[in-house]
């Protein structure tokens, strides 16, 4: 069940990551990511949105091999990542799927000139480029990102650059590897609004001109809409809705997506503050019982939501939602029997 027509570039199947919490006596499992399946195609920007604590950064770290999955598997170009054993294979994967981090102030080494990270990436991942040519290649990459006077920027230290420039350097480091898929974890949330758009445009340009795919992780749905082709919504470790970005935003099927959309401040829209304004908070998912994790906040919750964890169901072309009520409304199931129980 992929949403990508041809063979996907990267696919996650039933991806699960638990963390042990508590002491030796009261050992418990925090379910950061539970049974998440998705695919990312070539030349595609996929946005992963959700509240803090929903597990979206854990997904990024699983893809970047910072964590190993508790269960489930990630396939890159059809090959399972758990099969990557040799240093050569791992390096090759990391150069194809690099990560860009949230905080451009913390993710560059302050003791080195910015050229350091880029040149090091070139040395590690691009053996085809001779040592003498690396500098020229670094300048080419930096210029491509719209940093002026490329040669000059490379010789500066991170503290001499603005936030927007630093984040471009973060992208330059990733681009030096000739990546196929960039995992960008909140790449613009620390930046001022006036420079944010520049980086979002840059992401779209990388997709259009170089065919790079992106997993854009964000809590800002409006920016996800601006740049992404598809969007996936996470809540408490589950993927609750996914689909083409306009379909999901214009016709959200999951009540959580609806809640998220209602919460987005939009100066162009009239103020709608109903009495049902949500004051709930996402649960900490520690050793959860079966059932929909959104049910306590959900205006539509019915009995079955207490007992059965909803599975993602395709409700419209390529548009899935994991909600018993939405499935029943679409005529694809009955509320009493929809979904299957978590075993």
């Amino acid at each position, binding site marked *: 069940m992929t949403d990508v027509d041809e063979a996907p570039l990267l696919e996650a199947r039933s991806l699960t990551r638990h963390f042990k919490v508590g002491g030796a006596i009261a050992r418990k499992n925090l379910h950061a990511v539970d049974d998440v399946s998705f695919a990312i195609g070539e030349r595609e920007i996929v946005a992963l949105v959700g*509240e803090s604590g929903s597990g979206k950064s854990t997904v990024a770290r699983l893809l970047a091999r910072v964590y190993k999955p508790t269960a489930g598997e990630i396939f890159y170009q059809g090959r399972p990542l758990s099969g990557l054993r040799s240093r050569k294979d791992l390096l090759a994967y990391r150069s194809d799927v690099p990560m860009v981090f949230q905080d451009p102030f913390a993710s560059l080494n302050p003791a080195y000139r910015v050229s350091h990270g880029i040149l090091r990436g070139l040395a590690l991942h691009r053996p085809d480029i001779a040592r003498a040519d690396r500098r020229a290649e670094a300048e080419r990459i930096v210029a491509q990102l719209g940093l002026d006077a490329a040669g000059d920027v490379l010789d500066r230290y991170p503290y001499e650059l603005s936030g927007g420039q630093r984040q471009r350097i973060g992208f330059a480091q990733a681009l030096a590897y000739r990546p196929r898929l960039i995992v960008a974890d909140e790449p613009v949330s620390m930046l*001022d609004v006036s420079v944010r*758009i520049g980086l979002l*445009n840059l992401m779209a340009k990388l997709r259009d001109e170089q065919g790079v795919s992106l997993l854009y992780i964000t809590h800002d749905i409006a920016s996800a809409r601006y740049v992404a082709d598809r969007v996936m919504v996470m809540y408490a470790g589950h993927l609750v809705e996914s689909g083409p970005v306009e379909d999901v935003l214009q016709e959200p099927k999951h009540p959580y997506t609806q*809640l998220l959309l209602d*919460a987005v*401040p*939009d100066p*162009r829209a009239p103020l709608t503050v109903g009495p049902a304004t949500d004051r709930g908070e996402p649960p900490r998912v520690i050793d959860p019982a079966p059932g929909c994790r959104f049910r306590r906040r959900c205006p539509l919750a019915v009995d079955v939501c207490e007992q059965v964890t909803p599975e993602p169901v395709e409700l419209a072309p390529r548009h899935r939602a994991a909600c018993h009520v939405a499935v029943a409304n679409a005529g694809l199931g009955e509320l009493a029997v929809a979904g299957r129980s978590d075993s």
Partner: protein
Amino acid sequence: MASAPLPDGLLSQEPLLQVRGLTVEYDTAAGPVRAVESFDLDVLPGEFVGVVGESGCGKSTMLFGIAQLLSPPARISAGSVLFKGSDLVTMTARELNATRWRDVSVVMQSAMNALNPVRQLASQYEDVMRAHGEKSSSVIRQRSEEVLALVGIDKTHLKSYPHQLSGGMRQRAMIAMALLFTPDLIIMDEPTSALDVVAQRSLMVQIKELQQRLGFAVVFVTHDMSLVSHFSDRLVVMYAAKTVEIGPTRDVFAHPGHPYTQGLLDAFPSIRGPRVPLTGIPGSPPNLLNPPTGCRFAARCPHRFELCDIAPDMYDTGHTLAACHLHAASREEALR
């Protein structure tokens, strides 16, 4: 020049807070940096004023200047902050202590850092009340429960430590603390920026409800213009230490007079309407150590013309006041 930064029709009302010519300098090795320059603001009783601007524009320094919370190397080099007629700038520490919390309270950006991590909420509330002369434990307890109820937190959390609360609850606990004496003015420095959209929205709605119920005035600083769009009565836009535009919030959004305000508005993608390509604002703010003598936004401005070498006054655009020569009635007025 239109100098009174108040909407017409409200001029008759006595302002609660009158900031005039507030200038804050940071002493650095390279010389003084003016982080806030000649800042004027009037706040009426019960009014909600939003202040927006990007990082480094001086908005937080301005708030700290109003609340007299600046510490060296920052200092107020000029201006006055009249609160109910008395100048906070020249007040002694003792007088300030009596005013703080009782008449003016401050809600900081990060509740995690503003609350004491090793003390229960009850004891932190008690601290505030005892410092202002409340001796009765039962009164303190009752009031603490009342303010927590106001922000929708169960009173059992009086026995909680900050780490036991979620981010949204901590921020609400801070607001409850600010309400202990029902002050006339609450100053808020990005109280929602550590929260995600849903929690942010519910906190904003709650602040607005409390404000309408209890009648306090709010000065609310944020970098996210769209956040205050539905909540503030008036909006101040700051750029490079100065006010560039001020006006009723809806007018600022509907008829922005300053190109910087326009640029900020154009930088927000929307979840509704057609998907249009946006540009943001190219360039970066000027170095305040050596700011340009003319308009500070000129280097990034798409409408730049020869007059921009002269620092603009605030001009009435018909909707808002904007510091931009585009709105000067004539060339002579600009050159005056």
